[in-house]
């Protein structure tokens, strides 16, 4: 069951095409990464999902229904450029923004109190936003975004501007919300920050989707059969005992432990590698090196350039 689907979205601006035939499917209760370099068309897609702008072609579905204005209250949006009214008091402002999303005033008050207590920021209620630090403002913005219990949360560059402690706090809350049934779309060009959280991704480059799927499947597709072996001793000469087709990519020593990276041919298995090493070296560790999303991202984007 997909909570949100976009089919063949095309969006043209006067001079250029922002999105060309882009389709995405976001499964319910998952985290979906919308990846792509700057200017790829992520923000255009997000604005279309938020119904800020309309697509020229294509259809959008929310929980099986055609996307329409009544879904606005089911979507929460944290834009990349965070912003609040600087001169307005924190509490007043949070209340206003929640009411704009259709939450009644007493309901909003109750929920705000819960979240302000949870983040231990109750004493900020009567402060003006401009008196708060950037990190504090981000927390407020996060609370405002999720206050109306949206089914779908869209975070544009979710972790930019947060310090490591707050990033962890945020991750924790995101996972909590996910466990309680929320679905997320992350839009980012910073792969590593979202890699561990995303279940599915779509990679957009130059207005087109060039890759999508489950994160672990994509990683498996792009893995290069490279393994890392840790062993006691100093830079052993693998050429002496490795079969011909095996390729040594690196071999470095630190203290009395060395690490070697070996690429095995598709015909061989990791077991073949271990078997050929065991008689010669004292193995400390053995693991496969999977490509990071970052590597895949760079590879795919560069491929398209050529």
């Amino acid at each position, binding site marked *: 069951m997909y909570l949100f689907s976009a089919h063949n979205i095309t969006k043209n601006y006067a001079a250029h095409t922002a999105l060309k035939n882009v389709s995405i499917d976001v499964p319910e209760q998952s985290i979906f990464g919308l990846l792509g370099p700057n200017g790829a068309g992520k923000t255009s897609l997000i604005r279309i999902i938020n*119904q800020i702008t309309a697509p020229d072609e294509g259809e959008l579905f929310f929980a099986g229904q055609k996307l329409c204005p009544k879904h606005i209250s089911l979507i929460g949006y944290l*834009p990349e450029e965070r912003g609040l*009214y600087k001169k307005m008091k924190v509490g007043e402002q949070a209340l*206003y923004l929640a009411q*704009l*999303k259709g939450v009644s005033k007493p309901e909003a008050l109750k929920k705000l109190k819960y979240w302000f207590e949870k983040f231990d920021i109750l004493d900020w209620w009567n402060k003006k936003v401009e008196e708060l630090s950037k990190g504090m403002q981000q927390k407020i913005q996060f609370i405002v*975004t999720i206050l109306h219990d949206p089914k779908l949360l869209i975070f544009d560059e979710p972790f930019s501007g947060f310090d490591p402690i707050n990033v962890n706090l945020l991750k924790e809350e995101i996972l909590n919300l996910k466990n309680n049934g929320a679905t997320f779309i992350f839009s980012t060009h910073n792969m590593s920050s979202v890699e561990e959280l995303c279940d599915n991704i779509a990679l957009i480059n130059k207005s087109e989707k060039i890759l999508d799927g489950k994160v672990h499947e994509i990683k498996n597709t792009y893995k290069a059969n490279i393994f890392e072996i840790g062993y006691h001793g100093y830079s052993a000469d693998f050429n002496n005992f490795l079969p011909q087709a095996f390729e040594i990519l690196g071999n470095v020593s630190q203290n009395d432990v060395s690490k070697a990276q070996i690429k095995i041919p598709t015909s061989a298995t990791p077991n073949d590698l271990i078997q050929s090493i065991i008689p010669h070296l004292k193995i400390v560790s053995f693991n496969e090196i999977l490509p990071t999303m970052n590597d895949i991202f760079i590879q795919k984007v560069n491929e398209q350039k050529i």
Partner: protein
Amino acid sequence: MKKIRLIIQREYLSRVKKKSFIIMTILGPVLMASIWIVPFFLATMSDEKKVVSVVDETGIFVDKFESTDKVFFVYEADLEKAKEDLPKEKYSAVLYVYKPSNSIPDHAVMYYSDKSPGIVTQSYISNAMQTILKNNLLISAHNISKEDYDLINRTNIKLNTEDIRTGKKSYTEIKTALGIFSGILIYFFIFMYGAQVMRGVIEEKTSRIVEVIVSSVKPFQLMMGKIVGIALVGLTQFLLWILLTFFIITSLQIAKPDVFKTPKTEQAFDAGQKIPSADQFQLQKLQNQEFKELIAGLFDINYGLMIIQFLFYFLAGYLLYASLFASIGAAVDSEADTQQFMLPITIPLLFAIIMSNFVINNPDGPVAFWLSIIPLTSPIIMMVRIPFGVPVEQVYLSMGLLILGFIATTWFAGKIYRTGILMYGKKASYRELWKWLKY
């Protein structure tokens, strides 16, 4: 609809609660009241009386100066003695008229010790001297009798105009003042509150909150909420100003009733130590007559109707321009960039203000008619015309067109606004605005 109400409420409350609003609300009536009160105070305030000692070698001016409550003249024969007396603070100044070569004096010298006589005193003395000199020449040199001379001086035709249908006087001066005043007031209101709309949009855009808000409401709703909210702020301020001005004036009238009396005839001449001549009484009467007419003229105007029309043209004119101001705010990233787009807004308003002088001179002419019909200038020009009486059908036509104009500019500006608020980082050009219109 509920969301627009929320936006209006926020825009209204956040402005009304501001210190600057409260200060302006209090300061406005104080300024307005002071326009009424200060002249009265100035009139009653007794300036230090200046004593001018006149040393006249020609003899033409001796005993001819009229002392007032400001300047008092004494006559001295010896210049040196008068100069000696000057530092002892007996006199403020010594006026020395020396005997000219061709018997008509054209020069006089004022000696002073510590303070230079003010420009008012100087011009009073030089005017008085000219009158005395003319007087002297006409009477003595051309044998015109004093009575004839006074008669010549008093020729002054006052034109009274009356409406043939109602038989009422038309009080043109008061209507002129009232028309120009309300036209300028509308001009200021449009700029003041229009600029507030623009600044509000820029604030939302630069603080990036706009993206959060347009994910909850339509950009058009946000724009209209802001415009209506600020219109209510304007109305609130206007009404508070009227109430407070009224309050200040009435409470002052109760506390210090004498302040509001017009300077009395006897006061003006008391100081002069000179019994006013019959002519001067005549003059005073004439002035009183004019004053009465002024008051009558003020009462002649239908204020209820005028205030209703003023409120309409204020609101509709503001609404017409406010959406344009909003679209300018959306097209730029900072207030400094607004200049280039302000011109198309400033020109029609400024043009209307400049033309209002022309319209006053001919309130029923074709220029007045067209400018009060065209929506961009009609809020100002129609207010200028209204005190003179405008045919009902013209008022309705102008109002109808103004409402249509408001709908047109709002539609037009809404399109620019919708695109502009989400464009960051670059200053738009007119060409880009044109493109945004077609999105």
